């Protein structure tokens, strides 16, 4: 027999959130949809263009290039931050004052505003006065992130890893701390190796929090704007111009609201699709 899946009164409690989301997400989204099919030269005058902007964006080499850069950046930082975050969480102390010290240290990068992170790393990595820049050049490696695409990518990735690995660490650590001691005791009795403990106890128990961590990092990195904008401004050339930077250049720099709106919607659909695929695959794996 079918049963009610939820308590209808709960809707009353989520009503304030629904209203808030309507104002900060749905209304702007509806406006973007409206802009995406029209042309404007300002003064609230619009001309119907149909799907012209979507076609233009889909055939734009500039869009393809920034999408490719974005996918590469997201893939690289996920491949670094997730294993590194888990490794740091595993090496953190389990009890004593060290726990509080480590947690505070880990939380610090997350508390710094994104534009400040960009400015910090900009100064830190400058080849003439920055500590990192001078150190790398001192090792005999020619490094200048303002002129070399490879150095710009290296610095951007390093900055993101510094800023966001802590999030993975904190989530993974929370997952690790929720494992009852009985599991470890049973593993010890069976003579399990540290790798076996990680593979068959810790990793499965962390799967749920790691799902959230990967999803959050994927979404954040796929929509990254402030940090690379402050650090490199999308340069040198366009080598670190990710999707959101390109979008802002089109919308505000060129005031092409129609193409920018169409690009925003395609961007939004890609994020939605990838998030759904990630979530479905991980939930399916968990169910199995």
């Amino acid at each position, binding site marked *: 027999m079918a*049963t009610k899946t939820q308590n209808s009164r709960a809707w009353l409690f989520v009503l304030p959130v629904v209203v808030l989301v309507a104002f900060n997400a749905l209304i702007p989204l509806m406006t973007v949809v409206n802009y995406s099919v029209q042309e404007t030269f300002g003064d609230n005058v619009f001309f119907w263009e149909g799907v012209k902007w979507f*076609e233009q964006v*889909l055939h734009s080499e500039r869009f393809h290039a920034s999408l490719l850069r974005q996918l590469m950046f997201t893939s690289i930082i996920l491949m670094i931050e997730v294993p590194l975050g888990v490794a740091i969480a595993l090496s953190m102390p389990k009890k004593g004052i060290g726990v509080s010290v480590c947690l505070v240290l880990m939380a610090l990068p997350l508390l710094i505003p994104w534009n400040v992170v960009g400015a910090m790393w900009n100064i830190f990595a400058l080849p003439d006065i920055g500590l990192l820049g001078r150190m790398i050049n001192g090792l005999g490696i020619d490094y200048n992130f303002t002129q070399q695409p490879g150095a710009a990518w290296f610095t951007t990735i390093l900055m993101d890893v510094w800023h966001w690995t802590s999030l993975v660490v904190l989530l993974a650590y929370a997952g690790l701390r929720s494992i009852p001691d009985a599991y470890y005791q049973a593993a010890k009795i069976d003579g399990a190796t540290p790798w076996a403990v990680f593979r068959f106890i810790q990793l499965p128990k962390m799967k749920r929090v790691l799902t959230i961590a990967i999803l959050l990092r994927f979404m954040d990195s796929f929509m990254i704007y402030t940090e690379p904008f402050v650090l490199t401004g999308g340069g040198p050339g366009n080598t670190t111009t990710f999707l959101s930077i390109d979008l802002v250049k089109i919308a505000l720099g060129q005031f092409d609201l129609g193409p920018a709106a169409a690009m925003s919607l395609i961007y939004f659909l890609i994020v939605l699709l990838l998030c759904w695929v990630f979530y479905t695959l991980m939930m399916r794996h968990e169910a199995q």
Partner: protein
Amino acid sequence: MGLSWMAWTWPTAAFFVFILLALVAMAVWEWRSPGGGPRRGILGLDTTRGDRLFISLLGSAFIFLAWLGIYGAPWSSPWSTRCWCSAWCRALSL
């Protein structure tokens, strides 16, 4: 201040009315027949009615984009994309 800054058009308004009506219809359906109608479809996923609506809409959006990207506008036949979307939605509901 009116809503002129939102630049409404009849086609986009109709699109959002359709989405709203679909959500209302789904809510009424769930109220009349609770449980979400779970089913394992052609994707091999356990989905509820809401999941199937979401996947249908998302898939349809990508079918339109793919058609536009491959064939461009003016569309050789707008009905072709509608047929593909209908087939996609029908397949999901099986």
